[in-house]
């Protein structure tokens, strides 16, 4: 039983961290119809910015997390008028935008590799620090990462449901034309979408690097399929769905390794489990947990 509870804890932490990145993908697809294949590399960018600030500049992890969130957000915002807006104006289709995002992903990853070099990196944190409660082990980085991710999820959910800006973002996902008719500048909203998606990716990246204890330039790329799986599981274009999908997926992937579950699935097959869970959900609910069939 202790093993199962440990896996639940691990699943919630990993799931909440991935849910942040998935929510960013969903915001961008919902609002701008761009499948942001570069989201994984935005995560990696966040992890390396935090490394530079916390270890390089010796400003500590809190400053590192803040810098990762802000810098990745700023990077995503800068690309809106430089790259995405001109493509929208030129009426680029979903496939053209997707291929552009793939290219951006490659450029970004190689850029990080060029700037930071290869090899595995670690933050200056005590990887062995942990709380022990009733036989359960709660590593400090995982507790901090999980708490930060859950706080970010709550903040995002509150923004979307309680503020006029959040309602406008959800409205944009329903109908960009009606949003403009209602007096809201769609270009301004696009900037907000990228700012949020970038911030979520940056935060998710640094928290994931904390949980995994060491990382390289493939950090986000390695999680990209899982992130997209969470987006589809939650319902494409639904940001709330992506948040739920991420946590559900994290739990399913961890619980599948439980020894009480027919000996447990080897950890290397966790992604397979994620996709089996995705297919199972889609067979029952083709639009995902909170998705609406209208979106795709």
């Amino acid at each position, binding site marked *: 039983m202790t093993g199962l509870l440990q896996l639940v804890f691990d699943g919630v932490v990993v799931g909440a961290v991935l849910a942040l990145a998935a929510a960013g993908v969903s915001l961008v697809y919902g609002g701008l119809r761009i499948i942001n294949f570069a989201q994984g590399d935005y995560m990696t960018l966040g992890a390396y910015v935090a490394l530079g600030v916390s270890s390089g500049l010796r400003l500590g992890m809190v400053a590192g997390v803040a810098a990762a969130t802000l810098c990745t957000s700023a990077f995503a915002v800068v690309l809106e008028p430089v790259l995405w807006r001109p493509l929208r104006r030129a009426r680029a289709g979903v496939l053209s935008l997707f291929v552009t995002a793939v290219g951006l992903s490659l450029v970004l990853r190689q850029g990080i590799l060029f700037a930071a070099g290869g090899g595995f990196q670690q933050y200056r944190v005590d990887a062995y620090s942990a709380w022990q409660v009733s036989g359960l082990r709660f590593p400090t980085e995982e507790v901090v990462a999980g708490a930060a991710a859950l706080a970010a999820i709550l903040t995002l959910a509150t923004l979307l449901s309680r503020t*006029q800006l959040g*309602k406008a973002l*959800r409205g944009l996902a329903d109908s960009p034309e009606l949003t403009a*008719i209602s*007096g*809201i500048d769609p270009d301004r909203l696009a900037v907000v979408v990228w700012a949020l998606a970038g911030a979520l990716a940056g935060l998710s990246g640094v928290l994931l690097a904390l949980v995994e204890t060491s990382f390289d330039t493939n950090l986000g790329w390695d999680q990209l399929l899982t992130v997209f799986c969470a987006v589809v599981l939650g319902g494409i274009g*639904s940001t709330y769905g992506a948040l739920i999908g991420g946590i559900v997926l994290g739990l399913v992937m961890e619980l599948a390794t439980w020894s009480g579950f027919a000996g447990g699935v080897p950890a290397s097959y966790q992604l397979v489990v994620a996709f089996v869970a995705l297919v199972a959900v889609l067979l029952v609910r083709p639009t995902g947990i909170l998705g609406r069939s*209208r979106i795709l």
Partner: protein
Amino acid sequence: MTAPSPFLVAEDLVAGYGEADVISGVSLSVARASLVAIVGPNGAGKSTLLRALFGLLPPRGGRVLLLEEGGSALDVTRVAVHRRAALGMALVPQLDNIFPNLSVRENLELGLGLRRPSGEQLAEVLELFPMLAARAGTRCGTLSGGQRQMVALARAMVRRPRLLLLDEPSAGLAPSAVEELFDQLAAIKVNGTTMLLVEQNARRALSEADWAYVLDMGRNRFEGPGPSLLADERIAELYLGGLAGAPAG
């Protein structure tokens, strides 16, 4: 008694899709606080005209003016769609006229754009559409066609527009919902809002309109007071399936 001054004027408007012009040189004038209808057969260019007037379809020629009471004219032909609400213009499109995944209340709140809604503005519009108050928390995608149309109209009215453009608001509605809709349009008109109505229910629109334009093949064909056009046998024969002055359906 002086005739009401025009508020919206379109001059020689040309607009279309791809290579083809759907409307070619359409002109119209909408008097302040009046209800003006645009009728015509399918494919006449009615909805295209409305989209061009609101900037959703950038006109290829001609211009659209908003005339202030002081006599000044504002050329809004190239004004971005999202800036029109601030000028007092509102549009209820025929399709995609609500946010289906948002609640009724959230739809109304977004009618104010990014401005924080005041309780007074929402209360005012809910007074005009009392049925919506009971369904404020309902997701709009689950509403009936008539209820959705009501939300669309209410969303447009939250900002207290000076000019309301409506694209086929009665399309697909049950007869009782059509009656309710026209009652609401009458109430909106009493408030002094200027309305331009594109409508497939030509008889009903002409019977209510202070002035009307008949569009055909993307051009002006006839214009005049709504009831006069309704009584005109030529128009009845060509566009209303005969029987001039027959009751509105």
